[in-house]
């Protein structure tokens, strides 16, 4: 909002346009400069009209990529990402990307073409009921069959996508609506004001109770989630932590919401969180959950979760309160607003004893600073990620895929800033990283963008290498190549008697694959080569792929197996652990 394009649309006198033109004019009005899509018959009128509008369209190689790009664009910038696809298979290809955005509350708007309204429901060529299909994985969707309804629907879609707990919205537009004409009046198409969820409520008594609990707590922990970033409450959380000297544990999607280097930052919680973080949570007498939803990957067994702790839950979505964990003080509202109301009631507190106890928990777990470890000839993913962190100064946008490398990234890349880690948490979508990184690069062209991806996930959306080449964008790709669907192999190792069924994976030579796309690359086999390779990639003018041939059967530690109590962690077998200092 407030961009030149927006002003232009606002000043645009109402005029008669085709539905297709209205699509673009409305997007321009909403401040959209980039979209990601793939054409086809049912959306052709929209594509035909594109040249008249100041919007850059990135041609993807698979519509799933378009949705992930819109998603990555949004995660990197906080703006609404836009994906476009044709009817039928184009629309269904979006679904995984839409669900990914839904589970992580990412605001995107997907626009699909559909067959003409006259043949809707007749199994016409490439007809699919995409509003029906996406109903459970969108915040809302629209089926539009009249040109005059397009602008209001798209504007409403943007409002829904951004408001309260964000999420994806789909607008399905029939071909005849794209071809018909209507008066375009951007201002008149404005949606009615967003209705605040009637069950959102922050009572004085709740704030007072929360302040009292914080004042009296001996062992408090802040649980910092993605909502901090969505709400823009980084400063408020930091003030709370610093003033009351409360340590902060982060969810995967919360990483970056509180600086990694901050003395009060404990690190990531949950299934692959550091042991001291989970111990602190299990021992806490007060949990202050900020914009997080007690996902099963962070609670472990619910029955044994933080049983000694009172719980304050600050959350924008009333449906999340008491869903998994029963809380004592629900404060249901926008996190930043709630914290602003709470902070005046918080006075400084002495947290030294508890922080010292937590330091004690750390004592028995090895310090994970691995940069000075001897080079034993093995290449570990942790080494690679640690070096990427060191060399990029922690300032790059890292886009990960899903698997072991994703957890190692979370453990070894220390995020200081919000929106510097882009990862599929809720849905855990393999194939997410490469397209999401393209979206992130379009959102933040001046930023250094790295993809950290497994050999498995990379092959799910590797076609987008061609998109990178066509767009000429600079992205660095680190393939953590362990020859396995590593995370599944790890579960087989731990829970299925090492029956490595269908997890060893033969892959193409990724450097050659990159080369075939005109993208340079290198294979790295030893620790000694990592730093130089990372520097080579960074200084290369174009996109660059590093194929890291890492230890094949390494596992992510510690691990809380699904359904176990959070403090029952599988630790790295002792003795000759090359990743831990003795």
């Amino acid at each position, binding site marked *: 909002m407030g961009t030149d394009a927006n002003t232009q649309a606002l000043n645009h006198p109402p005029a008669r346009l085709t539905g297709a033109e209205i699509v673009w004019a409305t997007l321009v009005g909403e401040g959209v400069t980039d979209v990601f899509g793939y054409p086809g018959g049912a959306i052709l009128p929209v594509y035909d009209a594109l040249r008249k509008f100041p919007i850059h369209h990135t041609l993807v190689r698979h519509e799933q990529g378009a949705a992930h790009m819109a998603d990555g664009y949004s995660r990197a910038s906080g703006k609404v990402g836009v994906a476009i696809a044709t009817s039928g298979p184009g629309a269904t290809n979006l679904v995984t990307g839409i669900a990914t955005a839904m589970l992580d509350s990412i605001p995107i708007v997907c626009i699909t073409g559909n067959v003409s309204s006259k043949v809707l429901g007749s199994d016409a060529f490439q007809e699919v009921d995409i*509003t*029906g299909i996406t*109903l*459970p994985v969108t*915040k*809302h969707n629209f*089926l539009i069959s009249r040109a005059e309804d397009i602008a209001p629907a798209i504007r409403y879609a943007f409002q*829904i996508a951004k408001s309260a707990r964000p999420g994806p919205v789909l607008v399905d537009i029939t071909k005849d609506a794209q071809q018909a004409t209507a008066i375009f009046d951007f201002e008149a198409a404005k949606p009615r004001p967003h209705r605040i*969820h*009637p*069950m959102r*409520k922050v009572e004085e008594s709740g704030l007072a109770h929360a302040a009292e609990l914080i004042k009296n707590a001996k062992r408090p922990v802040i649980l910092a989630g993605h909502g901090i970033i969505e709400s823009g409450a980084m400063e408020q959380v930091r003030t709370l932590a610093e003033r009351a000297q409360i340590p902060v544990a982060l969810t995967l999607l919360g990483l970056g919401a509180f600086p990694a280097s901050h003395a009060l930052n404990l690190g990531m919680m949950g299934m692959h969180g550091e042991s001291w973080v989970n111990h602190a949570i299990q021992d806490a007498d007060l949990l202050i959950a900020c914009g997080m939803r007690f996902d099963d990957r962070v609670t472990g067994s619910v029955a044994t979760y933080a049983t000694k702790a009172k719980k304050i839950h600050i959350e924008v*979505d*009333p*449906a999340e*309160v*008491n*869903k998994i964990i029963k809380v004592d003080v629900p404060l249901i509202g926008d996190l930043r607003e709630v914290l602003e109301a709470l902070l005046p009631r918080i006075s400084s507190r002495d947290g030294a004893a508890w922080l010292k106890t937590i330091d004690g928990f750390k004592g028995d777990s090895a310090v994970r600073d691995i940069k000075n470890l001897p080079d034993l000839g093995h290449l570990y993913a942790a080494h690679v990620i640690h070096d990427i962190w060191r060399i990029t100064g922690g300032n790059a946008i890292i886009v990960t895929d899903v698997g072991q490398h994703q957890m190692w990234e979370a453990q070894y890349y220390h995020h200081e800033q919000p929106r510097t880690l882009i990862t599929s948490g809720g849905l855990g979508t393999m194939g997410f990283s490469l397209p999401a990184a393209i979206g992130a690069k379009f959102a933040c062209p001046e930023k250094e963008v790295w993809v950290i991806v497994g050999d498995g996930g990379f092959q799910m959306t590797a076609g987008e290498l061609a998109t990178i080449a066509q767009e000429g964008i600079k992205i660095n790709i680190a393939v953590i190549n362990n020859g396995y669907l590593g995370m599944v192999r790890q579960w087989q190792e731990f829970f299925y008697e090492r029956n490595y069924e269908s997890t060893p994976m033969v892959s193409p030579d990724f450097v050659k694959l990159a080369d075939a796309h005109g993208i340079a690359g290198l294979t790295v086999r030893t620790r000694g080569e990592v730093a130089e390779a990372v520097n080579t990639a960074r200084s290369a003018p174009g996109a660059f792929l590093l194929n890291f041939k890492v230890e094949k059967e390494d596992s992510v530690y510690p691990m809380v197996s699904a359904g176990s109590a959070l403090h029952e962690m599988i630790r790295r077998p002792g003795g000759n652990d090359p990743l831990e200092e003795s």
Partner: protein
Amino acid sequence: MLHTFVAYVEDLPGVLTRVASLFRRLNINIHSLTVGRSEQAGLSRMTVVCEASAEAGHRIQASLYKLENVVEVDDIAQAPSVTRELALIKVAATPRTRSQVFELVEVFRARIVDLAPESLTIEMTGVESKIEGLIQVLNEGEGRILEICRSGKLTMRRGHHTSGVLKAMSVGADESAEVPAEDGAAVEQE
């Protein structure tokens, strides 16, 4: 426990699916669902009755409110309310066997709304248990039941609430003015 939700929803295509889909996703079986026009133009009123845990009520209400087309949701739960159901029951009855059915209809204060040589149709309005009662005695009688059509529950809170007031109530307005009533009894036979 049995939950009863009253929802005002926009009268648009697909809204019923969105509401139903929410229950489906939670794997909750809907006992009955009634939809019709309300006192407000453009808004339909739904009554959804379902079996779910006591805690689920909050989540269902909160999730219903997250649907864009849902304007207002009231979780009637145990609140004093008037609940009725309408049933049409077609019974096989010849001129010879009719009189027994007539008697039952009289006792249950139901009505005969259609009479054919081989059958008759009873209209009955009341609380669920009364309708069940009529069905049971009809089953025990001579006339075979051919068809049953039941509306599902229609529910309204007692007292001076209009839908607009429900909002105020949900933020803790005084409910003491309400007429206390025990539901389920065979009171009010309109």
